C-alpha cells in the first residue's frame, strides 16, 4: 500500500443542552460535581446525532461522497434493523453505498475507525453515544452525549487533513464494565481492578505502535487518551510521557463510543500542520492510532468546531433531563399519543421524510414543501425538479407555542418558516427557548426523532435557531 491514507474530513455534534452537575446534588442530595455534561435533547437519539455529525463532516467538502457508511453506537435506536440506513437516507446517499452498524461495545467505534483507515475507498465512520447513569451515579453526571463523523480515504481522494501513520492494538478479556441487552446503563467492577487490568495492555499497544511507525514518544505532539475507565485512562496518560489533550470532562462529559473521535476532532480543530497526534483508547484492551496533520487541515475544518459547540448551549433542568431519558415519568397533556407512521408511506416518500427534498416547479420556480406533483400556480403536472432543502436556511414568518398538543417535552414551539430562495413550511422548532422566539428569526434544519409509537421511531426534520 503505497498511497497515504488518513482523514479527508471530520465533524462533531455536541447537543445544545447541558446539565449543570451541581443541580444533581441540589435535587437528589447526592451525586453531581462541578461543570456540565452535554445532553441529547428529547428528540435526539444516537442516530439523529450521527446525522448531525455526518452532515457537518460532509459539509466541509465539495461533492465528495463516501463509498461506505459505518455507524457505531452502544445505544442503538433499533436492533435487528440497521440504524446506519437512517443516516444513509438523511444524507441522501446512493443505494449502492453500503451502510453498516458496528454495535455492542465501546470498542466497536474505534475499531471501525481503524478498519476504515486501513480499508480501501472512502468510508464515513460515524460514532454516537448517549450515556445514561442511574441518578446520582458516576455516569449520571460524568457521562456525555455526542456524535462524530470521520471520512477516511487516501490522498488520491482529495487532500488529507491528517495522515494515518499506523498504530497497534492489544486485547484483553476481563469483566470491568458490562451491560445486559435492554438495560439503559452499565455496571462496573471496583475501580482498582480495571486499572491494573488495563495498564499492561496500554503499555503493550503503545510500545507496539511506536515500533510499527518508527516514532518515539518525543515525536508525539499531543495524545488523546480516553476510555470509560477514568482512573485507568488518567494513569495511562501520566505513564506515556506525552502531552495530553483536554478530555472535555468539565464541559461535555465522557461521550462513550463517540468520545475518542470527539476528542480527536477537538484536537484537529486547533492543531498546527505537521503535528503528530496519538489516539489511545482503553476499551477491552487498547487501541493506539497515530496521525500527522497536514497543510490542508486549516482549510478543511468543519464550519463549527467542538469548542464553538461547547460554548453554544442552554441548560436543562435535572428533572427535565431525567424525564427526557425516561428515568422520570411526567404527566403528558391529555391528548391521544400519536400513531405509528406507516412504513409503506414512509418508503414512498423517503426523499421527503429522510432527505427533506421538496419539489420546484420548472415553470413557476415555486418550491413545494412537501413535494407536489401539481403546482400551486401555473397548472403544470409532473414538471418539477427535486429541491433538497436540508441545508437551506430560512426566516420565521409567524409562530406559536402549543401547550395542548402531545409532546415528550411540552410545550411545542411551531413556526411558519420561509426559506431563502423559496419554499415555505410550517414546522416544529427545537433547541429553542419559547420566550425568545420572534418573527424574523433565522433558522436552519436538523434531523430529529419526532416520536416513537409501537416501537417505530418517527424521524423527520425540525428547524432550530441558526447558530452559524
Amino acid at each position, binding site marked *: 500500500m503505497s498511497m497515504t491514507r488518513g482523514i479527508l474530513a471530520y465533524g462533531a455534534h455536541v447537543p445544545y443542552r447541558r446539565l449543570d452537575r451541581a443541580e444533581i446534588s441540589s435535587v437528589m442530595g447526592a451525586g453531581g460535581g462541578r461543570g456540565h455534561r452535554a445532553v441529547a435533547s428529547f428528540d435526539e437519539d444516537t442516530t439523529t446525532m450521527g446525522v448531525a455529525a455526518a452532515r457537518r463532516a460532509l459539509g466541509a467538502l465539495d461533492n465528495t461522497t463516501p463509498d461506505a457508511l459505518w455507524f457505531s453506537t452502544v445505544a442503538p435506536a433499533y436492533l435487528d434493523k440497521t440504524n446506519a440506513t437512517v443516516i444513509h437516507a438523511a444524507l441522501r446517499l446512493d443505494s449502492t453505498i453500503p451502510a453498516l452498524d458496528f454495535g455492542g461495545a465501546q470498542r466497536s467505534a474505534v475499531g471501525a475507525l481503524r478498519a476504515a483507515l486501513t480499508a480501501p475507498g472512502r468510508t464515513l465512520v460515524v460514532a454516537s453515544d448517549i450515556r445514561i447513569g442511574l441518578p446520582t451515579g458516576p455516569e449520571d453526571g460524568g457521562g456525555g452525549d455526542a456524535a462524530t463523523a470521520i471520512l477516511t480515504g487516501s490522498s488520491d481522494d482529495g487532500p488529507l487533513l491528517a495522515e494515518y501513520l499506523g498504530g497497534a492494538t492489544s486485547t484483553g478479556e476481563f469483566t470491568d464494565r458490562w451491560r445486559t441487552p435492554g438495560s439503559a446503563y452499565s455496571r462496573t467492577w471496583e475501580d482498582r481492578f480495571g486499572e491494573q487490568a488495563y495498564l499492561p495492555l496500554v503499555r503493550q499497544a503503545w510500545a507496539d505502535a511506536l515500533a510499527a511507525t518508527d516514532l518515539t514518544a518525543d515525536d508525539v505532539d499531543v495524545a488523546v487518551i480516553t476510555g470509560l475507565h477514568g482512573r485507568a485512562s488518567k494513569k495511562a496518560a501520566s505513564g506515556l510521557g506525552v502531552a495530553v489533550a483536554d478530555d472535555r470532562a468539565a464541559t461535555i462529559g465522557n461521550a462513550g463510543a463517540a468520545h475518542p473521535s470527539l476528542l480527536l476532532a477537538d484536537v484537529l480543530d486547533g492543531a498546527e500542520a505537521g503535528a503528530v497526534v496519538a489516539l489511545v483508547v482503553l476499551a477491552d484492551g487498547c487501541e493506539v492510532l497515530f496521525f500527522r496533520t497536514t497543510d490542508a487541515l486549516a482549510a478543511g475544518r468543519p464550519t463549527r468546531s467542538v469548542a464553538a459547540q461547547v460554548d453554544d448551549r442552554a441548560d436543562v433542568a435535572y428533572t427535565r433531563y431525567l424525564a427526557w431519558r425516561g428515568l422520570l415519568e411526567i404527566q403528558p*397533556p*391529555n*391528548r*391521544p399519543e*400519536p*400513531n*405509528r*407512521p*406507516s412504513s*409503506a*408511506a*414512509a418508503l*414512498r*416518500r423517503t426523499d*421527503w*421524510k429522510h432527505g427533506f427534498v421538496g419539489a420546484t416547479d420548472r415553470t413557476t420556480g*415555486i418550491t*413545494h*414543501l*412537501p413535494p*407536489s406533483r401539481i403546482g*400551486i*400556480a401555473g397548472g403544470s403536472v409532473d414538471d418539477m425538479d427535486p429541491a433538497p432543502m436540508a441545508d437551506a436556511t430560512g426566516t420565521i*414568518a*409567524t*409562530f*406559536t*407555542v*402549543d*401547550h*395542548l*398538543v*402531545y409532546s415528550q417535552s411540552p410545550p*411545542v414551539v*411551531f413556526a*411558519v418558516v*420561509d426559506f431563502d430562495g*423559496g*419554499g*415555505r*413550511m*410550517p414546522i416544529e422548532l427545537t433547541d429553542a427557548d419559547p420566550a425568545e422566539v420572534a*418573527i424574523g428569526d433565522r433558522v436552519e434544519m436538523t434531523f430529529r426523532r*419526532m416520536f416513537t409509537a409501537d416501537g417505530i421511531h*418517527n*424521524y*423527520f426534520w425540525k428547524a432550530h435557531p441558526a447558530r452559524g
Partner: protein
Amino acid sequence: MASHGILDRVAIVGMGCTPFREHWDRSLDDLLIEAHGLALNSAGMVKDDVDAYWYGTSQSSASGISLATPLRLDNRPVTRVENYCATGSEALRQACYAVASGAYDVAVAIGGEKVKDGGYQGLNAFPIPTDGTNRTLTAAAMFSLMLPAYAERYGVDEDRLRYVVAKIAEKNHFNGARNDLAQFRREMSAEAICEMAAVAGRLSVFDCAGVADGAAAAVVVPAGRATDYTDAPLYVKALSLVAGDGSGLVDPAFDFTTLPECVAAADDAYAQAGITDPRTELAMAEVHDCFTPTELVLMEDLGFSERGEGWSDVLDGRFALDGDLPVNTDGGLKSFGHPVGASGLRMHYEAWLQLRGEAPADRRVTTLDTRSRALVHNLGGYPGEMVSFVGIWGTERD
C-alpha cells in the same frame, strides 16, 4: 368560480337542535333521535314523509346505516357526509341540491357528534396512516398563528389585539348566556379572559370553542311547496363551498391574516344571492368562531369590515347583539359548543329562529324591520388549508 346557485328553489320548513352539552347520560343515537324528532315536529311531518337523508358526522360513526338504524328508517337513502368542521352545513347543502334536482320532495339534513366519549380533552382527529411528516399541532395553535401575523401586518399592539379577541369571546358568552341550548351560559369579561393562562400562542382555553355533544337537523322541500308546511320558511339564497388547495402552507405570499377559502366562498355566495353590501343587507350572521382570532379575521373576509379594521369594529361593538350587524347571536361555537357534525346545522338553527322572530326576546336581533336575510359561515381545517361554507337564507322569496 362559476356557480349558478339555487336561489329560491329550496326552503327549510323545519328545524331542531338538541342542547349542546357534555351529555354523559346520552348516546349519539339519543341525540340524533331527538334532533330528528324536533325537526320533523317543527315541519309538521312524520318519519314516513321524508324521502332521503344526508347525515353529517365527522368521526362519531360511519355510513348511512348509523342513522338508519337508530331511526329505523324504512328503506330510505342515507348519505353519510364528512367535511371536517363544515360537515353539518355540507349535509344541508347536499340535501338542498337533491331537492332542487327534483329527485326528492322532502329531504332531511342531520348532523351529530359525540365527542365526549373519547376520554381526551379537545377535539382529536381520527388517525389516518401517513409517512409521519404531517403536522401534529392542535387546531388552537394553528389558529393562534393569526394573531401575531395580524398584529404585525396592521401595526396593532399585540396586547391590544389580544384584548380585542377576548372581546369577541365576551360577546359570544353574553349571547350564549341568553340561550338555553348553549353549553356555556355564563357571561365572561374580556379582562378575565386576558388574565387566563395561555395554552396556544396568546390564546387561553376561553378563546377556544366549547367541546360538546349534540345534534341538529333541518327539513328541506321545494320552495313552491314550502308554505304547505310553515308560514315562515327560510329560502335558499346562496350555497357555496370552497375546498382550499392548501397553498397557504406552501406559498410565502400567504400571511395568515386572511382565510382565502372564506373570501372565495363569500364572493360566490354574494353573487348567487345578489348581495352587494353585506353590512347593510344582512340581518345577522352566524360565523365559525372556532377560536377568537378566526371570528376577527372572518369579519374582514366576509366583507363585514374593511381590511385591517375588523379589530376596531369589534371594539366598537358593531357585531354585538344590538350592533349594526349582530354576529353569533346564539353564542357561537365559543359558547354554544362544537359537536363537529352538528355545528353547521346549529348555525342554521339560529338563523331559522332569528329570521322567523322566534329567538328569545333577550337575544332577538333588532335588524329585521329592514332586512330579511342571514348569512351562515362554517369552516373546517386550518389557516392555509381549509374548507369553507357560506350560505345565505331569507324569509322573502325574490
